Structures are given as C-alpha cells and as structure tokens.
C-alpha cells in the first residue's frame, strides 16, 4: 500500500499514525468491519448486518456503522482515529484500553461497539481542557509515573475513574483499586504518588 495514496484524506501534516498506518485511515461514515485482533477469522463481511451506533465521544456526537463483532477499542482506534486508547492484551487482562462509558471506567476491548448506542464515551484525548492538562495527567508527568508510556492512557483513565468513585483514600486503597492496570515498566510507586497528588486537586 502506498502511503502517498493517503494524501488529502487525513489532516494536513504527517503524523506517526499516518506513516505507520499507510492507507488504514477509515472515514467515520465508512462501515467498520472486524479489524483489530489480527487472529480474528473474518467471515464474509457481507453476511454480517451492520449496526448503527450514535455516541458522544469526548463531547462530540458521532455516528458509526459497525460490524456487531467489533469492539469499542477498535472502533475508537481504527474508525475514529482516537489512538490514545491502547490495545495491550485485547483480553481484558491488562487495563491499557480503559475508557469511560457514561462516566464509568470500563475495558473497551471487551465492550462491543454495538452495545454503546446513545452512551457517552470519554477517552484520554477528552481529559484535557484545551491546552490545560487534567490534574491526573499533570501529576503523572510531575511524579514521573511512566517509563515507556504504553499503559499510561489506561492508567490515567482508570485513576480518574477511581477518584470519582471515592476510593483513593490511602495508598493501599489506590493499589487495590488500580490492580486492573498493569505496568510492565513497574512504575507503580510513582503512579501511586501521582494519584495521591491529583486526587487532592480533583476534590
């Protein structure tokens, strides 16, 4: 696939995503078929009835047509080009894909996109207010709560969800309630410090 074919479809300027993805950019109106999980044996796409899903993503109403097998994670990343949400294990075990649905932290890799009609989705891209970072994002930077950064969007979305749940009152509680987010660089001590800082500001 020639990356140049993409010229004119995406926003101007070359993004890492554009280069890596080649011609993979999918316009929102285009049906999103079962992509993502590479091992997925895709049956004849024509045989699967598409489902129309109207959602608010980071405050913006969007309408997408999805194969009923497609996850919210793949819809965000492949269909809406919101690649901040990461695909780690794709099995509900690592937490990298954590987003908020109607304000609750959930795993987008185990959520079928077809089930979130008329819900509100918040991803890591929706946390900042303009140029002002969310207190949790700021705290992760200040406390150095990351190394490679792959788990970080999931960590931050999970941490914000936990503070809203009212369960970030001690280091032990933070560790217990964040156990669904794995960090293979093992930045856990700094993540706990970052959450402790941020929840004071968030209150």
């Amino acid at each position, binding site marked *: 696939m020639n990356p140049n074919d993409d010229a004119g479809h995406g926003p101007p300027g070359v993004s890492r995503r554009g280069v890596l993805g080649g011609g993979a950019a999918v316009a929102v109106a285009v049906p999103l078929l079962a992509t993502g999980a590479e091992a997925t044996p895709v049956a004849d796409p024509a045989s699967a009835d598409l489902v129309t899903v109207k959602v608010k993503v980071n405050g913006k109403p969007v309408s997408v047509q999805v194969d009923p097998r497609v996850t919210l994670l793949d819809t965000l990343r492949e269909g809406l080009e919101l690649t901040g949400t990461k695909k780690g294990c794709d099995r509900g075990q690592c937490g990298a894909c954590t987003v908020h649905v109607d304000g609750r932290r*959930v795993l987008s890799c185990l959520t079928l996109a077809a089930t979130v009609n008329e819900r509100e989705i918040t991803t890591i891209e929706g946390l900042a207010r303009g140029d002002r970072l969310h207190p949790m994002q700021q705290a992760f930077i200040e406390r150095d709560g990351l190394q490679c950064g792959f788990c970080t969007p999931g960590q931050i979305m999970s941490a914000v969800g936990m503070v809203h749940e009212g369960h970030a009152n001690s280091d032990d509680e933070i560790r217990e309630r964040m*156990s669904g987010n794995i960090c293979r660089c093992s930045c856990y001590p700094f993540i706990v410090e970052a959450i402790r800082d941020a929840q004071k500001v968030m209150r």
Partner: protein
Amino acid sequence: MRAYTFTQPRSVREALAHADAGAAFLAGGTTLVDLMKLDVMAPTRVVDINRLPLRGIKLDRDGLHIGALERMSDVAADRNVRRDYPMIAQALELSASAQLRNMASIGGNLLQRTRCGYFRDVTTGCNKREPGSGCPAMTGFNRTHAILGTSDACVATHPSDLAVALVALGTDVHLATAQGTRTVPLDTFYALPGSTPHVENVLRPGELVTGITVPRSMWAPHSVYLKIRDRQSYEFALASAAVAVEWRGRTINQARIAVGGVGTTPWRLPVVERALAGQLATADTFEAAVRTAADGARPLAHNAFKSALLRRTLVRAFTVLAQSR
C-alpha cells in the same frame, strides 16, 4: 470472531423469543466477548439483554432481591448489602478488577466459565469445550485446578467468588423461558462434571437468569469472605471461604460455609457446619471442625497443597469472624 446475528430486545418476552439454539445472551460481555475472541464460544446469534428491565437491589422482609443485570460494583457499593450481607460485598470486591466489576453483571457472574487454560485454548482437547476430546489438565499443568467434585473427564475449577458466598447464604436463582418462569436454589443450580462436563448447570436451552433472592437470616449479617491467591489483588482464588455465623454470645449457634477455588462447583461443607454448631468459638474448635474439610479430595500432580490450604483458609476465616463479632 465468527459472524453472528445481533439483536437488542427491549423486553424479557422479546429476548426469550430470540433465544434459539445457537443464541447467547450478552450482558457485561466480560466472559462472552473474551471467549468469542478465543473461538471457545461461537454463538450464531448474540442477544444484547442490557436494555431489559432486570435491575434493582431491593431489601424487603423476604430478603435481598438483585436484578440479573445489576453490575458487580453497584451491588458491592449498596449500603444494605454491605450492612446485612457483608460477605457478598467482600466477595465482589475481591473479584476481578474495578473496570471488570463496573461491566460484569450478577447473572453473568453466576454463569462465568472456568479459567482452565486448556478450556480456553482451542488447540488442545477439552471435554468441557468439546465433549469426548479428552482432558489435558489431568496430566498437564493443574496447579490451579479443583480437588473436590472432579471426575475423570474434568477437573476445572469453578471461577466465581460471588457464587460461593451466595451458595453459603441459601440464595435462590430466578429463571425464565418463553414457556414460563421458575426458581431454583443456587446450591442445586450447578452440575458436577461427571461424564458430561459441558453441562455446567440446570439451565434449559434459551433460559435466562432474571435475578436472585438472598434470604434474610440470623447469620448473613455476621459473615466474611476470605480469598487466598497467588497475587494480593486481581487474581482467581487458590482457596476461598465464605463463612456466616449465628452467634449466641461466644457460642456458634449455627454456621453456614461454602468454599471456592477448590471445587468444580461452589462447595458446601455441611459436615464442618455441624461440627461447629453449639461450640464455643475457640482456636481448638476451629482446628477440630476443619479436619474433614478436604475429605474426598482427589489431588493432582500440582495441586495437592490445596487440601491444607483449604483447612487453613477456613480456620483464618472463622478467626477473623470471631474477632469481629
């Protein structure tokens, strides 16, 4: 993932009408979507039941009524549950992760499938997944497998913490088909593997779990769920104990006990219950009562430690409960 027809009914009646032979009900999706990706489950129709009115956490004279679609985190946070049925809240909060608890439903939790690695791996045989294809766990890696209720066909551990607490408390499960409704004690809901490990419960084809009722009792408010696992959090039980006691001073009037992580179903221990009845709550009483707890165990190459672990888990659960009396 294989192709399926997707439907989103708005009523129980409509959902049941869609429940044909190849159909699967979808609630939180934390089991079904996972297993469809692995090709372990391949329904031809997925019925999204999340719009059904199977909600509510209500306490009345009969007990605690929970709609099948209530989420684990919401039940765990409920004030009545925490006050009158503490072991239910504890079993829920010791399950999975916060994100999974926000997604997974109570009905789905009762029906979640085993974590046996061979069941989840379609490149191996598994009598539960594919009847007659053998059980590699017998001679393979079986450290986390069951020691109680096993058969020559299957040694898969029942994964639910909640079901262990609910069995101990005498919970009823409410079921519906297009032909009508019925109520089954959770204790008799689950099937031992025997020679048919693919049959895990008494559900009929197309039958839907609509809710549960946990009766009021003198013991439920004095209950504890203790879970022992390889990690401190976000892990399935190696052994767990759900213990509820009706006290008369420092004497145990009556005890209700079920254990997890060791059985092919949530496992009641009536002999231990009887050994505790009428006894003073002392360390000697506890040690004596648990002597028979793992009787009948059939240990495998890597899980023989579970018999002793089970007895110690029970003693610690009794001790914690006696101290908090």
